[in-house]
């Protein structure tokens, strides 16, 4: 075996390593810690701006899965101050597990309409994103509802990503709120029967498929359209489709949010509150919406030119809590319809 001294050296080195990490964590001077479900590079410009203005350093950890679990396990010793999510369900999950605390700051409540924050102000939306229906330019201008995805006239002409994806699940949850469980299941089954191919790929991939003539209709979030238009190679795909806001004649288009919450055991509450206020400021809202091609929630802030060019739309006024509440049921229906298989 290796010599004892070597082994003990290893151990001491390990302890050293831990100690270094420790001091790194403990040396909290002017900081705020963010657990983010959203890719940091999408929010980094905002944080840089915040640091510049306030002198408070922003630390970020990003993961798409398991952040709530980590926060819960860490409990009262968690270093997290702010949670950023890209989906209402994640936000509600954090809320339901008691991992958030309310922030009644008037600046926040004034800036954000009641529809886009928790009743007890423990979470706030930052932007909204629409679940659009893209249609091929070959079809011309279409008036379309989510319900039409089950229409037999689109048989073999629809592409979509996995039914298990959070965006699809949220849409199904809103359908349940509108039509009830039984009808939603029928809708899902007919929708599945209309698919040109088994659910696969991502939202951009569906647009690419339309461009290539594999299908004519697809589901996709609004901001991907903007991002494709800005990408040299993908622009030709996006040029082949129209972006449609569904259900404009009735309840309005399904909307999801990206949002934030203040962690229950936030160690840097003051800094965290400063960051939250910053994130809903007109400047930040503008920048955030601009970089991500999303719709700002703050009243009076306009989306980017490109986003605005897609036109005004009516959003479904269904409370976001209901979407989150119907989530599990939605997933069950998707399983029942064997949507992905």
């Amino acid at each position: 075996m290796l010599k004892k001294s070597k082994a003990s050296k290893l151990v001491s080195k390990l302890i050293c390593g831990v100690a270094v990490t420790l001091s790194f964590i403990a040396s909290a001077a002017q900081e705020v810690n963010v657990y983010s479900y959203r890719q940091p590079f999408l929010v980094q410009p905002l944080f840089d701006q915040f640091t510049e203005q306030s002198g408070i350093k922003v630390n970020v950890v990003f993961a798409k899965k398991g952040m709530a679990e980590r926060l819960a396990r860490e409990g009262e010793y968690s270093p997290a101050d702010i949670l950023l999510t890209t989906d209402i369900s994640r936000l509600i999950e954090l809320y339901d597990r008691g991992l958030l605390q309310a922030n009644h700051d008037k600046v926040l409540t004034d800036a954000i309409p009641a529809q886009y924050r928790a009743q007890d102000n423990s979470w706030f939306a930052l932007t909204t994103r629409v679940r659009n229906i893209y249609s091929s330019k070959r079809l011309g201008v279409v008036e379309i509802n989510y319900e039409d995805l089950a229409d037999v006239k689109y048989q073999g002409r629809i592409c979509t990503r996995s039914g298990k994806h959070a965006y699809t699940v949220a849409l199904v949850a809103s359908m349940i709120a509108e039509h009830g469980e039984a009808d939603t299941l029928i809708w899902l089954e007919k929708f599945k029967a209309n698919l040109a191919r088994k659910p696969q790929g991502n939202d951009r991939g569906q647009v690419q498929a339309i461009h290539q003539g594999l299908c004519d209709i697809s589901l996709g979030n609004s901001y991907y359209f903007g991002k494709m238009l800005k990408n040299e190679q993908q622009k030709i795909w996006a040029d082949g489709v129209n972006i449609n806001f569904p259900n404009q004649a009735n309840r309005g288009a399904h909307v999801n949010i990206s949002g934030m919450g203040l962690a229950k055991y936030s160690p840097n509450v003051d800094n965290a509150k400063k960051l939250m206020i910053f994130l809903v400021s007109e400047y930040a809202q503008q920048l955030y919406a601009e970089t991500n091609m999303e719709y700002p929630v703050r009243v009076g802030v306009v989306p980017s030119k490109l986003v605005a060019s897609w036109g005004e739309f009516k959003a479904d006024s269904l409370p976001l809590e209901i979407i989150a509440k119907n989530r599990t049921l939605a997933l069950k229906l998707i399983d029942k319809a064997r949507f992905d298989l």
Partner: protein
Amino acid sequence: MIEKQKNRRWRGASYFIALTLMIPVLVMLYAGINASNELFIHLWQTVLPDYIANTLILGVFVVLLSVIFGVISAAVIVHTNVVGKNALRWLLMLPLAMPAYLVAYLYTDMFDYAGPVQRALRAWFSWQSPSDYWFFDIRTLGGASVVIALVLFPYVYMLARTAFEQQDQNLLRASRLLGLSAKQSFYKVALPLARPAIAIAASLVLMETLADFATVQYFAVNTLTTAIYDTWLGYNDLASANALASILMLFILFAVVSEQRARAGQTYQSERPNKNHQLIKLTMIQQLFASGFCWLLVIAGFILPFILLLFMAWQYSNIAQLQALLPTGINSIKIAVWAASLTTFFALLLVLFQRLSHDRWRALPMNISGFGYAIPGTVLAMAMLATFAPIDHAINDVAKYFSLPTPGLVLSGSIFAIIFAYVVRFAAIANGTIDSGIKQIPKSIDYAPASLGVGLFTMLRKIHLPLLKSSIFVAWLLVFVEAMKELPAVLLLRPFNFETLSTQVYQLISDEMLEQGALGAILIVLLGLLPIIWLNRAKTGNGEEEV
């Protein structure tokens, strides 16, 4: 062999390590007990049977293909005079450096209906729609199996090649003189003798495949891991997710153990193996097939995806990006070196205990310490949190009680947790590699030094370690390369502002922008290549006779 007192201490150390590595697994099993029946019934009535079927088919296909790819290429390299074998010898290991999720992303993109290949075909033949022609659908079980096998077959290749190289060539000669042709001798002698090594490699491939989530997701293939993530993230039922992961793990272990049973007691080594390989002279046509086969594997498993990455990097990257990636790359290397060194050290301890102890259950610590490889990375990370968070809480509670400043999350929120997770996850790789290495050393060597009055540790230092040197190195290398690629554990367990190359690449892939992450991906691959190339240089050639 080992004397009583040392045996006791060693046993203590072995069980301590093994049980420590088992803790997250036990935590997962325990958490699974609270699984809800209702959810299981729902899943069983809807999608679970299909998921299970897919899991089985995927496992069987990937293992079969990896074995076919790996064994044939190893046989060609060791037993024939194929042209360019000196290059192919190590080129065939390169696909290991390619993260499977990357290759999956690239290939699904490329062979998709809207991908460049089918676009070009349509343009060329003026086809209009899918009904005009047939093209294989990459997003199927078959497509997933082939692509996953393309990046995992090097495990089989490496271990099978070593086994073939170490075999006593007199056995093959004996077979020839008993009337069997070179080919028949290979099937009836060389292949069965390499079975333990191939089995170890196949079990690594199986575990890696079935615990994988990201890769199969690109292929739109739903397996048991899909169900695990659905139950956890969709139904918010972590307990049931743990139960499913436990079932998956037990299923994999069952497959591995039954294979081991089937070949129990068949260990053998010549005292003076004849290593003069009779190279089979290939005819022109055979040369073409043999080298074509090997090159195809190298190209499909490495060169093509690598070129695609280079191409993307060329289009989308700049020097500033590269500079920004440097500290990230250093983080990656740091944790990969730690993980590789610790894992290899523990594996050596456990494998030698298994070899030298008289205990009836001496193989137990080694076997149980490898369970972690059969658990999906994110589930393991969850278990890691469940393991360390309580300890952290205790530490902080104590500090609070004595009115000391609380140290924060010493274990669960630091790179300690990441490295621990890696050790748990990759122990199976290091154990398997070193174990298959020690099986090549004749048992009689264990007794020899005692008769010379040499102590146990002197014997290990002077005999076993030098003989195991290459296995130890291969084990280290494999864990290093895997650790460079590993994603879920580091993603979930890292401290603030701690990026590795894989988290960096993942960020961009998850936003459907691999192009921007191509540079990082290239760095992962290159850093994984370095030790492979180094390994090849360190390897001395074998004596070979052309016949």
